[in-house]
């Protein structure tokens, strides 16, 4: 039996393709990385189907690359060595929301937009942490790549919000992690050995997550954007520290854009919320007071006439951040998501501008502060997909900003393959070996998304 026939046996003929049209699309993403090669595209509906596909892949030694929304932009779900792409988006059921215990149980293909909309309609007092990605991004994949969302400055990054998991291991066993391994309650992933860590941040090299329970959070009725503006970049770490120390922000960004001129400043965008209007007003007043005459200077000013477009940009959940892909009228966008220590912001700020200018780009920043410990510093590059030179420039800019990130003591979030190599090269060797050993232990035949977190040396 051919592989195609075997796959058809598992999922049905309408849910498998080896046609060049599908293979073309599933061999690339919207970032600046070169395409890979898919041999089959499969649309599973259940964990049992995935188990059977995994067993087949082991027997035939075929790689598997699971795909969510395909919006990581860094080739994480582009098959490096052929094989099967598992498009998970047919597993799109929201299995339930437990209001009392504040979690949602969802399948791997549920999109950010679908969950947001579902909560809005059926559980309007609750929300999940929604990333800046388009609403077609899947919730599960975003948690697994350690994404962050619009309440991360308050509640932590999205992978910390996983309360339970169902995983198909690379050897075919279907396993559960957290309280759901003891009973049908999916409310907590501990106290137990934290096996979720075997699957978070591994780019599906250790298993295929088919369900998660996701922590939900209160959704206050009132939410407003405040912006403060400064040109004193060196003041930013202290300002971030104090804003986070005050501990009243729901979301917190730093942004800058060299064009138009009015955007060519550092903006500290603080989003506050409250269950009561008075509570919100109190928080706003506290931040205004905090930053007025900050550090004995007048260099941070409250923006009383915030541009409506900017206000909408930060109030919309999710925002239309994808618009950056048309900055160069070319449909391409990728960024180095530098997870940096906050004290490194000024240096990163200057070096990011220099990199953008070196490659003929206008610098555009959107950085999100994550709790008080780090910042997701976005070195953003829009490029023209129709222009190979422009793509190459974006790739070179990415390489430089990846290097800067590591030089500044940071880490690279969902980096493309060269970035993963850089990280592994710099990593303490025993740690790099541990990663390899875990992968080999869980995936003895090396079928899971090969090439990712793989140390060429």
């Amino acid at each position, binding site marked *: 039996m051919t592989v195609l026939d075997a796959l058809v046996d598992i999922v049905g003929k309408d849910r498998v393709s080896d046609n060049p*049209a599908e293979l073309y699309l599933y061999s690339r993403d919207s970032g600046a990385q070169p395409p890979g090669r898919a041999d089959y595209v499969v649309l599973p509906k259940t964990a049992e189907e995935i188990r059977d596909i995994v067993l087949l892949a082991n027997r035939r030694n075929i790689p598997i690359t699971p795909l969510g929304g395909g919006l990581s932009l860094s080739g994480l779900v582009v098959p490096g060595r052929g094989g099967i792409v598992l498009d998970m988006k047919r597993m799109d059921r929201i299995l339930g929301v437990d209001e009392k215990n504040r979690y949602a149980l969802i399948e791997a293909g549920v999109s950010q937009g679908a969950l947001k909309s579902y909560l809005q309609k059926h559980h309007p007092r609750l929300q999940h942490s929604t990333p800046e990605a388009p609403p*077609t991004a899947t919730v599960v994949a975003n948690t697994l790549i350690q994404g962050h969302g619009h309440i991360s400055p308050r509640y932590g990054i999205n992978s910390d919000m996983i309360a339970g998991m169902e995983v198909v291991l690379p050897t075919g066993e279907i396993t559960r992690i957290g309280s759901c391994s003891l009973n049908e309650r999916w409310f907590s992933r501990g106290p137990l050995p934290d096996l979720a860590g075997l699957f978070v941040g591994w780019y599906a090299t250790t298993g295929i997550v088919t369900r998660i329970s996701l922590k939900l959070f209160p959704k206050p009725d009132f939410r407003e954007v405040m912006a403060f503006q400064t040109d004193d970049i060196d003041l930013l770490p202290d300002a971030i520290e104090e804003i986070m120390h005050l501990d009243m922000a729901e979301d917190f960004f730093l942004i800058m854009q060299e064009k138009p001129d009015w955007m060519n400043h550092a903006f500290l965008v603080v989003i506050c919320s409250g269950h009561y209007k008075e509570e919100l007003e109190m928080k706003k007043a506290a931040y205004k007071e905090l930053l007025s005459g900050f550090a004995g200077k007048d260099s941070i000013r409250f923006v009383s006439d915030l541009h409506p477009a900017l206000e909408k940009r930060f109030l919309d959940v999710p925002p239309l951040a994808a618009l950056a892909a048309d900055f160069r009228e070319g449909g391409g966008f990728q960024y180095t998501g530098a997870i940096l220590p906050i004290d490194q912001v000024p240096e990163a700020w200057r070096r990011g501008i220099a990199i953008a200018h070196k490659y003929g780009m206008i610098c555009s920043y959107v950085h999100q502060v994550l709790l008080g410990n780090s910042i997701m510093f976005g070195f953003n590059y829009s490029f023209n997909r129709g222009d190979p030179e422009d793509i190459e420039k974006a790739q070179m800019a990415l390489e430089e900003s990846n290097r800067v990130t590591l030089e500044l003591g940071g880490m690279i979030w969902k980096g493309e393959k060269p970035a993963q190599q850089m990280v592994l090269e710099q990593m303490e060797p025993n740690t790099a070996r541990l990663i390899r050993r875990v992968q080999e232990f869980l995936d003895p035949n090396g079928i899971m998304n090969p090439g990712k977190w793989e140390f060429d040396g």
Partner: protein
Amino acid sequence: MQHEEILHRCFRCGFCKLPADYSDINCPAYLKYRFESFSPGGRMWLIRAWLNGEIQNSERLQEVFFSCATCGNCVEHCIFSKFRDRILEAFIAAKQIMVEQGSIPPPVRDYLTRVFEHGNPYKIPQKKRADWAEGLDVEPYKDQRYLFYVGDVGSFDPRAMAVARSVARLLQKLGVSFGILGAREGSDGNEARTLGEEELFRHLAEQNIRTFAELGVERIITLSPHGYNAIKNHYPRYGGDFQVLHYTHLLAELLPKTDLREKSGSQTPRRVTFHDSCYMGRHNQDYETPRKILQFLPATELVEMERHMADSLCCGGGGGNFFTSLVCSGREASAPVRAREAAGTGAELLITSCPVCTIMLEDAVASGNLQDQLQVRELSELVFEQLFPSAAQD
């Protein structure tokens, strides 16, 4: 290819697949197939790859291109305002090249051939075009105020013929001066255009325009939103400038001037939901007209589906798919999904204002065994039932 310059600008962010609240898939082709290739963004990338020679024409690629129902959800929800208006036109342009190359899916080829050879896709002689009006005392158009343009579906499909009768009877009841073309009526060409056969469309449009001009037609009422769209938006470039109304426009204008509501007597309240057709809604931005009519009707409560107006889920019949069935079969096709959504509102009637939607959704209600919960009515039929309850039985 026309509009080629926008293809690489698609980021494939996927807003185009969704309604405004992101709750579900709102693209009929993607809903049915679920491969990214059948999403609007996937199609954009594949057209580009095909033009660049990275992939070749194949049956699958033809299926990808021709399964687009031209519903316009992608245009409505794409976030790139600088080029979103051209997305559908790019899809049509790609189909046009395939048509010129003669490499198209057999059902598309058959549809176009039938229209070319017989003047309609049903292969029914032209002389039978007025059969729907038998016994209605509808006059041929001479110098009446309006031409009632019925179109292929209303002229030949038995279910849609009943809709045409219903509209004609309403117009008569309201004292509207109108006539029909009968055997002189030609296909409106809307589907030929969306299937990429622009030359056939031009031929059909020019033929109709000539007939209209010879008869001195100035004002046209259409039965179908598809015909309305073609004559209003695409005939002008071939010299056809007419005042075009969908029949609902006329009803919305005339009904409030009557005392029909008061005269209709007491009736059992009816809970209805309304399905916005793509060609009245997203293509022509008319959402209020049918709702005005529903509001006018006695004992009629409108309950909206979650996806309504600009977010309406297409029945899957547009872009020629009503005839080619590329996107119409299966439980996950959009018409069954739409029928279930309508049933979920608790409405007893699903109202449409398009003969294609009526047939698609009626079939879906039947195949989904929803008949006990939900029936489909074309709006004119509901108007008739509510305002002329005794005559509606005739």
